[in-house]
């Protein structure tokens, strides 16, 4: 991370925004001023830059409406505080271009929304969730000790966790990316949230959530941890994260939480009526296929494997009730269309073969 240090008009070091916001935020609260100083300045710097850009380009624009035209190249973020109630959206506490405040949760949500917007725009040319500059809204401090984060069809919602099992849900940037990607899916393939299509919906959110983390950290497929929700489990829980794309079923094994139930292969597909037909369980299979394809191709996972998955999600051929085999077949088609009959095609075909999903 130190390699990304730069200067801010003087001798004081500043971490570039490539350092994930949650790392910055943690650093900013570090007792060691050598660590907290630069991180704080970087957070401030980031906010300053955004404010400046906003002031020079959208003066006069109505604050409630999304910036029109060229301004869609910038996010339009609003963070609300539910004040531990379950009333949405809550009180507005930070809007686009404003300075970070004293609430780390608000700042993390704001930065995570920015990181997600950035990956979709810079890598895939997508303008926000709906590709038309949709404002990004998030509510934090939802409920009391609320152990969850979700997408309600219009905005993201984050609980604080109970501190016994879960910490604050804004901590992992991949969780923020996961929730926003539910919005992207809703506006594209709109995969039905049940059974295999539901597990694909979940997997797509894990894939792009993980890619957002990798993109902000500047990690290659080989360097990434491929974990979803790392840093979210309270210290007393025996586990590293909620899901592992690299090794589904190994993220946690705890006397309270139980064992990570995710399968990595089709032969272990879990048939259940709970959790909408096991959408958070069976997503392990397509998750692992993505991991296998991305690591076989090497380099940055968002470039090729991510591009192929994005092509399928947004290409118009993916049906709302798609099965794993339908999705897999479309990734093969997308790999061939974009990259021809080379390594990319082979990597994708082999990945699905390894997890036991048939492609046509």
């Amino acid at each position, binding site marked *: 991370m130190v390699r990304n240090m730069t200067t801010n008009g003087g001798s004081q070091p500043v971490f570039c925004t490539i350092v994930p916001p949650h790392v910055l935020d943690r650093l900013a609260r570090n007792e060691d001023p050598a660590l907290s100083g630069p991180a704080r300045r970087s957070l401030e710097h980031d906010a300053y830059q955004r404010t400046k850009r906003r002031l020079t380009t959208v003066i006069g624009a109505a604050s409630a409406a999304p910036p029109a035209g060229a301004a869609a190249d910038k996010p339009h973020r609003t963070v609300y505080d539910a004040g531990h109630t*379950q009333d949405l959206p809550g009180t507005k506490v930070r809007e686009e271009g404003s300075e970070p405040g004293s609430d780390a949760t608000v700042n993390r949500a704001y930065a995570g929304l920015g990181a997600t917007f950035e990956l979709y725009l810079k890598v895939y040319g997508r303008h926000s969730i709906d590709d038309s500059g949709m404002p990004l809204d998030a509510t934090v401090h939802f409920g009391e000790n609320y152990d969850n984060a*979700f997408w309600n069809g219009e905005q993201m919602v984050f609980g604080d966790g109970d501190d016994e099992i879960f910490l604050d849900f804004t901590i992992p940037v991949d969780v923020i990316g996961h929730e926003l990607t539910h919005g992207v899916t809703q506006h594209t393939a709109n995969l039905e949230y049940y059974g295999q299509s539901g597990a694909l919906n979940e997997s797509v959110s894990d894939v792009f959530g993980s890619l957002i983390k990798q993109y902000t950290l500047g990690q290659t497929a080989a360097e990434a941890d491929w974990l979803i929700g790392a840093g979210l489990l309270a210290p007393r829980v025996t586990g590293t994260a909620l899901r592992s794309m690299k090794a589904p079923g190994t993220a946690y094994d705890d006397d309270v939480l139980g064992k990570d139930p995710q399968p990595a292969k089709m032969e272990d597909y879990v048939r259940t009526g709970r959790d*909408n037909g096991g959408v*958070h369980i069976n997503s392990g299979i397509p998750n692992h296929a993505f991991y296998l394809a991305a690591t076989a191709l090497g380099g940055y996972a968002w470039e090729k494997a991510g591009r192929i998955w994005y092509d399928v999600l947004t290409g118009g051929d993916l049906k709302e009730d798609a099965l794993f085999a339908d999705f897999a077949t479309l990734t093969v088609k997308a790999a061939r269309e974009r990259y021809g009959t080379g390594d990319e095609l082979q990597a994708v075909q082999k990945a699905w073969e390894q997890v036991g999903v048939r492609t046509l």
Partner: protein
Amino acid sequence: MRIRVRRTGGFAGIERRAEMDTSGRPDVEEWRSLAERALASGRDTPPAGVPDGFRYEITVDGRTVYAADPLLTEAQRELVSRVLKEGA
């Protein structure tokens, strides 16, 4: 009165369940009223819910209703939160 709550789904996909028997408790009438209100606004089939939202099954003396975040009524919210906290 036996009240059982099962919560499934959520970002983590981890199930939680708890049950309690209110008979003999000093606040039994309070529980009865809360349970009745929670059941009255419940659905007979699971609602679609939202991505990563919690799903709830509330069973009171053998009758089960379903609900999902973020559209719980106040009574349902209070009941599931109390049973998950105080139940076994």
